[in-house]
């Protein structure tokens, strides 16, 4: 076994991890980044469409272009990057991990750890959709790999379940590459992805978007032949009599992302609802020297936010290395979800840093007030919807020292 040590170890080299590595290295500490894929970038590498970096670089870039910017920074900061490295067993109490690589197993000891393992796609099996188990059902990410990396199509006619951004983008991509996309089906009464993607990926290509619908059965063996969809009621229960068959050989799933946290369960606190790692606004988890950022904390819809949080986590990891005593009188204020807030991050506020809040409302609403209590912040929004994450920054000094609980709510403006 090869043993090395570092100040900051970053697990996962996607958008969050690259930013974390850079954020830590900027403060002059030694950083090692471990990535399980052949290259850094994570999901960015699969997203060869435009739309990345508007916030962060003030430019519109493709996924790989955006990743490249960060890959350059990794090189500039001489960050040791271990590719094709699989973190096997994190040993939190000993501050070390084992990493499996083709050059052997590495034991890496760290002063501070940043986990940026992203999210995985919810698989078909988890949806419990009845019917056959044929070939021809793929997650959007897998289909993207087939198309973008192998230049092969997964079939001739496809139906897409889920109108998240990945689903919408795949609808356009598959159409452009020669497949027929018969519909995008979404069980919510509104699309899951960004409005601009609905317009550019579906409307512009005449692909129907069937809201309040879901797949109720798949048929075919050995290859998929038919997908049955049905209308659903407000509790997402299929309405009898509304079943319609679609003859397709391919079903693409874009039904949500699940934070990749299993490696840390039991050691890091997991949010029971979002299933992401609980963090403070510094990225710090329940462990003083362990930080997390990106989609394993909460599912973001813009990579720019992910990079920003990655940077922040990296920076605070480095600050911990510089002075472990800062956690001695660490103050943490819990942040609670109030009315109409479905998803909220971070989980704690540490006054050493500004508070960047990310939230999703639980339903589409018009003319609302977003309130951070007690009397910390208020803002009016004309329209809010669950598919558009709200992000706002509150200066640290807006939260008074006596505050022992923060609550965020979104209520109708009266």
């Amino acid at each position: 076994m090869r043993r090395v040590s570092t100040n900051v170890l970053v697990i996962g080299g996607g958008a969050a991890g690259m930013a974390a590595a850079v954020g830590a290295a900027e403060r002059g500490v030694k950083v090692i980044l471990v990535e399980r894929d052949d290259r850094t970038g994570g999901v960015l590498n699969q997203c060869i469409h435009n739309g990345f970096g508007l916030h962060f670089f003030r430019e519109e870039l493709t996924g790989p272009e955006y990743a490249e910017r960060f890959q350059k920074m990794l090189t500039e900061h001489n960050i040791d990057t271990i590719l094709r490295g699989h973190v096997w067993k994190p040993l939190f109490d000993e501050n070390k991990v084992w990493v499996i690589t083709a050059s052997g197993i590495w034991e890496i000891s760290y002063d501070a750890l940043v986990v940026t393992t992203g999210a995985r796609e919810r698989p078909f099996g988890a949806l419990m959709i009845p019917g056959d188990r044929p070939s021809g059902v793929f997650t959007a990410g897998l289909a993207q790999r087939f198309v973008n990396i192998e230049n092969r199509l997964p079939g001739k006619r496809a139906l897409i379940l889920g109108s998240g951004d990945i689903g919408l983008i795949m609808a356009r991509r598959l159409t452009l590459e020669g497949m027929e996309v018969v519909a995008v089906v979404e069980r919510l009464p509104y699309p899951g992805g960004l409005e601009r993607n609905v317009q550019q990926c579906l409307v512009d290509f005449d692909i129907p978007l069937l809201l309040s619908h879901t797949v109720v059965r798949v048929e075919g063996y050995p290859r998929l032949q038919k997908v049955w969809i049905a209308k659903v009621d407000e509790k997402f229960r299929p309405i009898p009599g509304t079943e319609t068959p679609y003859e397709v050989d391919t079903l693409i799933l874009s039904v949500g992302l699940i934070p990749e946290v299993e490696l840390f369960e039991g050691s890091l606190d997991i949010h029971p609802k979002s299933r992401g790692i609980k963090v403070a606004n510094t990225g710090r988890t329940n462990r003083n020297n362990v930080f997390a950022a990106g989609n394993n904390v909460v599912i973001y819809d813009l990579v720019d936010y992910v990079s920003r949080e990655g940077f922040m986590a990296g920076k605070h990891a480095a600050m911990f290395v510089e002075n472990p005593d800062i956690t001695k009188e660490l103050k943490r204020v819990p942040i609670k979800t109030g009315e109409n807030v479905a998803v909220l991050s971070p989980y704690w506020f540490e006054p050493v840093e500004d508070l960047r809040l990310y939230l999703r409302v639980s339903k589409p609403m018009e003319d609302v007030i977003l309130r951070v209590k007690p009397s910390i912040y208020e803002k009016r929004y004309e329209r809010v919807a669950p598919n558009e994450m709200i992000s706002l920054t509150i200066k640290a000094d807006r939260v008074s020292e006596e505050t022992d609980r923060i609550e965020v709510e979104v209520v109708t403006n009266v």
Partner: protein
Amino acid sequence: MKVVVIGAGVVGSLVARELVRHDFDVTIVERMPDPGMGVTRANSAIVHAGYDDPPGTLRAELCAMGNSLFQNVCEELGVEFKRTGSLVVAFNDEEKKRLDRLVKQGEKNGVPNLKLVERNELLTMEPHLNPGAVAALFAPTAGITEPWMLAISAVENAIKNGAKFLPETEVIGFETKGGRVRKVITNSNSIEADIVINAAGLFADEIAELAGVEHPPIHPRKGEYILLDKAVGRIVQRVIFPTPSEKSKGVLVLPTVDGGTLLGPNAVDLPREHKNDLRTTVEGINEVREKALLLVPDLPIHKTIRTFAGLRPETPQKDFYITAEMKPWGFINLGGMRSPGLTASPAIARYVVEYLIEEKFGIKLQKNEKFDPVNNRINHPTAGSVEKWDRLIDEDPSWGRIVCACNEVTEAEIREAIKKGARTLDGVKFRTRAMFGRCQGGFCTFRIMKILSEQLGVPIEEVKKSVDGSWVLDGHVRSDNT
């Protein structure tokens, strides 16, 4: 003496492997690309203790005997088997009385160490169990295994000892002459045979009919399952049964050998024509969920990674249908292999060779002196120590390349599986557990296809999921063609 075994489920595979201990020329014919892809692929994977079946039936006799042989067979074949024990839980006095009857029945069947446990002890043994339980029958000899691996491994071992395996080959008829079977006709060849063993699972009745042999009709009884991620942890330590009904053992909650949790099966009778109907249904999955929650109320159903169905080969008389035919001479039926067919399979293998062939057919067994009982399982380094794993990587770096991240399967394991006969994604999946984990192949399917394509020397679009027609990739993208 030439023996043709039809069907490489757990029964046919173990019979074939038992045959090569002796001087038989064995050919195994299987219509799927791999062994163990029929009934053997989707069932509860329990090695039953043997108290369920009425004394005097073949099921009772072979189940108890199979249980006692299981450990040894699994050790030789490198198949996982864990003697977890099982609990049949009673929720009221009426059910508790039925437990007493089960104990008596078990003792008659020769099941060792059966014991009734009262509520307090029971809840200490299984803290997640519904606290409404009043007592349980504890059978320490019950266990869990990986049925498809047992079939795969038995076939590999049979091949090592001289048997021929013909995958993707379907039996379509027989040539009989002078009251004996002479040839087995398949869709691609014909094979000379002195003895034919019909272990065709759900299709055993149809195979018998092709040979002009009687066999009770087989109809499928569907059982659906929910599989929970291993991240759930060991929510139950043992196999948990409700008190059984006439029709089935009920919906269970049990651990799987690789750390997952399995819920199911329900029981729905289907018409004979539905022998390929592996569809899951809303009603079935709901039934399984509800009944499983009655046993273990805090099951995290949201951690489901897969739902699937299996088909039990049922006959009207319920018992296994095992016969040695005299007309045509040499034809052996191993049909009606409902539960506990898996448990009984090592015993059935012996019964066939030592009783049906030797005694009934009067064939003198001649030992195969070179028989080697051992099949080496593909090494799975996560299961061992870091130091060992590290040394493996030194020898061959592909042991250090993780392909399936959920189950930590290395490239070396995938390559080994292909060397051992995997030619499809399912072939790799069932041999290595790659694509078996919580992301269900989202991350690694693509890589495995590339390895298959490279190692088999076929273009990537020819890599299939399983049988012919289960293609994965179609054409090239448009921008690639122009």
